[in-house]
């Protein structure tokens, strides 16, 4: 009996070793796909690059949609960050999705808003919009208050209310660089509309000095939990998304910040309301509609860091976030299962969706089994020490060395952190990833998978501390 179990565990171990080795190679392959583009634009003068469209009257106007639910702590600084955007013509629409805190009243008071009557087009049905307000200080700032219906429903209401041909969807807790809209709209403008949606790199703001909603000095946070998320973001954005974008098979534009052609989103049917992964689900649906129409439009990701977000700084909020992400991923893949391995959808069906299933979704299970085998194998001698050692090394390679590579890649491209010490700190923390941070997130991702099967979910209840320090600066 014990021999049979040992054999089964050994087979599982070998499968996991092959899996992790293959995924590591795939990551490295994507790194090499992304590398030339990063290298090409590495020394580009970014200010001169957007100077023309900053002053150009033809730069497409954009509606900035900010869904907010119980965001009283951060909503004012987010609004100020949006109003300070360097862009020729835009409107900012805050959508209060039935908050039970002071979200709306903070915005109404601070920006001296007055109620306006509504004649909203209804591209999509949403929960009823109760009231709308316009700022008397900034005529391009609006607030709409609606009954609670979730983030996707709030975004759909924002699209209904918006008047411009492009919209940017932004999380209520995000801050944008002043040139964020210009940088993300540039591929759309340069391609004469052939690019239908764009997203940019999202960075974690914890630890940085933020004054009046602008990142003044980039610095590392003290908390290892947040440090690890910074490294994770490097890995996801610099290695994963850029590579997928180069292959025109990018399936995620972060919910924290993305720009979309409104007509395309309307054609695709808007945000899906009964999922927690509405950002990814929309992108997959846009891809689907593009392929169904045989359109040559594409979705692009820009490598510039343009959006700053507050990362969860407690175990419980991080756990909740990771469960939600994993559940959203599972739901999206399930919704669009007919596209998987369907040659009609080319790169999306044949590569991107299988990639997301095997690498992003199921890796949690593979990794969890791997950790159990390493620990259990060593403790109870189920597997030979050689296999245990190989598994350990592959796990370190997969969990730590790829992350440390992403840190190096970030320094090579953007060198945003101002001193050598920050680089060394990030590098050495990246090496620890496989030993504590990854096992933790793997468990939460598995919980998310279970939640997807049980259909549990909500807006997400992260406790915000607020990342901007207006009062200190005042």
């Amino acid at each position: 009996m014990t021999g049979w179990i040992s054999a089964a565990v050994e087979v599982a171990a070998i499968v996991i070793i092959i899996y992790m080795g293959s995924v590591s190679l795939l990551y490295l392959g994507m790194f090499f796909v992304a590398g030339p583009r990063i290298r090409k634009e590495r020394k580009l003068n970014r200010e001169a690059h957007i100077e023309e469209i900053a002053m150009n009257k033809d730069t497409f106007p954009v509606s900035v949609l900010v869904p907010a639910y119980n965001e009283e702590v951060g909503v004012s600084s987010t609004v100020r960050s949006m109003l300070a955007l360097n862009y020729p013509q835009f409107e900012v629409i805050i959508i209060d999705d039935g908050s039970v805190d002071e979200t709306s009243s903070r915005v109404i008071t601070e920006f001296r808003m007055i109620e306006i009557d509504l004649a909203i087009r209804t591209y999509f049905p949403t929960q009823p919009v109760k009231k709308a307000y316009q700022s008397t200080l900034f005529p391009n700032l609006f607030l709409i208050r609606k009954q609670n219906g979730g983030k996707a429903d709030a975004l759909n209401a924002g699209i209904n209310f918006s008047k411009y041909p492009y919209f940017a969807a932004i999380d209520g807790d995000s801050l944008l660089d002043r040139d964020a809209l210009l940088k993300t709209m540039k591929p759309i403008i340069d391609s004469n509309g052939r690019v239908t949606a764009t997203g940019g790199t999202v960075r974690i703001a914890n630890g940085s000095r933020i004054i009046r909603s602008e990142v003044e000095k980039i610095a590392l946070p003290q908390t290892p939990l947040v440090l690890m998320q910074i490294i994770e973001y490097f890995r996801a954005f610099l290695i994963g998304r850029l590579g997928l974008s180069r292959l025109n098979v990018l399936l995620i534009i972060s919910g924290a910040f993305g720009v979309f052609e409104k007509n395309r989103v309307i054609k695709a049917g808007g945000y899906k309301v009964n999922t927690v992964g509405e950002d990814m689900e929309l992108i997959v649906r846009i891809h689907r509609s593009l392929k169904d129409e045989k359109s040559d439009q594409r979705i692009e990701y820009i490598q510039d860091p343009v959006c700053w977000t507050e990362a969860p700084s407690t175990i419980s909020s991080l756990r909740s976030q990771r469960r939600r992400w994993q559940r959203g991923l599972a739901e999206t893949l399930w919704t669009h299962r007919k596209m998987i391995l369907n040659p009609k959808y080319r790169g999306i069906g044949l590569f991107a969706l299988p990639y997301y299933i095997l690498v992003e979704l199921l890796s949690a299970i593979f990794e969890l089994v791997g950790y159990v085998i390493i620990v259990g194998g060593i403790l109870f001698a189920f597997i030979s020490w050689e296999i245990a050692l190989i598994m350990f090394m592959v796990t370190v390679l997969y969990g730590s060395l790829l992350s440390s590579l992403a840190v190096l890649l970030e320094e090579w491209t953007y060198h945003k952190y101002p001193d050598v010490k920050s680089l060394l700190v990030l590098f050495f923390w990246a090496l620890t990833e496989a030993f504590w941070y990854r096992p933790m997130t793997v468990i939460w991702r598995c919980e998310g998978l279970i939640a997807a099967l049980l259909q549990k979910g909500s807006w997400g209840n992260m406790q915000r501390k607020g990342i901007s320090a207006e009062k200190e600066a005042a």
Partner: protein
Amino acid sequence: MVTAVLWVSGVFFVLQLILLTGIAINKNRSIRLEGRKQQAYRQALGPYIVYLSGESDVQPRLPKDKSIKIFIIEKLLSGYSQNVNSEAEKERMKMTADEHLQSHYMQVLRKGSWSERVNVLYFMEDFMMTSLKDQVWEHIQAVPERDEEYRQSMRVLASFGDERVLPFMIYDQSLSIGFTKELLRRFPAAFIDRLKTTESLPSGVLTAMLSYFGETGFYEHLPFVEANLNSEDKEIRLKALAALTQYRYYSDHDSLERFITSSLWEERMYGARLAGLLNLSRYSPQLMELAGDGNWWVRFAACEALKRLPDGEILLEFAAEEHQDPYARDMAKQLRTLRTGVTA
């Protein structure tokens, strides 16, 4: 097997340590170089501004290190070019740029990386380095892709008034209307006049011209814009109408009727906007009717136009309360409270 995995992981790790060491050393060096550059720039700024503004004819000395010297000149001239006004100041800026940057830029155009080439093309235009016109012309013909490098080369040539760029603009179908307008904004007036008399221009170029004319508001182009209201091409007509809303002028008020009653919603929308902008009260019955149009944008434009009329508030009040169409009533209510501005 174990040995192989250990080797692969070990080599990968050691490689990373080597990379880390290299990058850290490089970062340390570049932080120090950046400090030196900034210090040298601060020292050069005052004396150089005195020289560039013509208060002194003695050119200040610059550090011998080439990279620091180029950094200082580029940064100085970038700031200065934003504020330069007189011809004499421009001439001195060009002379300084030619003296210190010309040979370096020629070398970058030949051998630099993509981003370096694009950067120097940006600077060439800012510093008006017309002496490099032929090099840019040669360069544009060798640019392999229709990307930013190609577009910036065209912008540079257009800024320098190089007429060789005209055929590129007219016959390159890949250029967007927005980019064509960028070139038009840079062209000397003579080029624009020549384009106006060119027969069978591609519709993209014509559309861009109409849009550009509306943007400039120059009345000399108005007859050209109005003539294109009779175009058979819908896009051309719409661009001409959009241009008129920017001019806020239309010589033939009677003809507005055909747009207000057009079967195309875009024409109805622009017709309504123009009627409002020109304060044409005689169209108020038609505008009242358009307030209940099937298209949201037409309803919006019609109510906005009603609001602009001399007795607009009363008309809007009437529409909000009495209009037979419920959508018109909603829109009128919104326009009563919403503050708007007309854009083309």
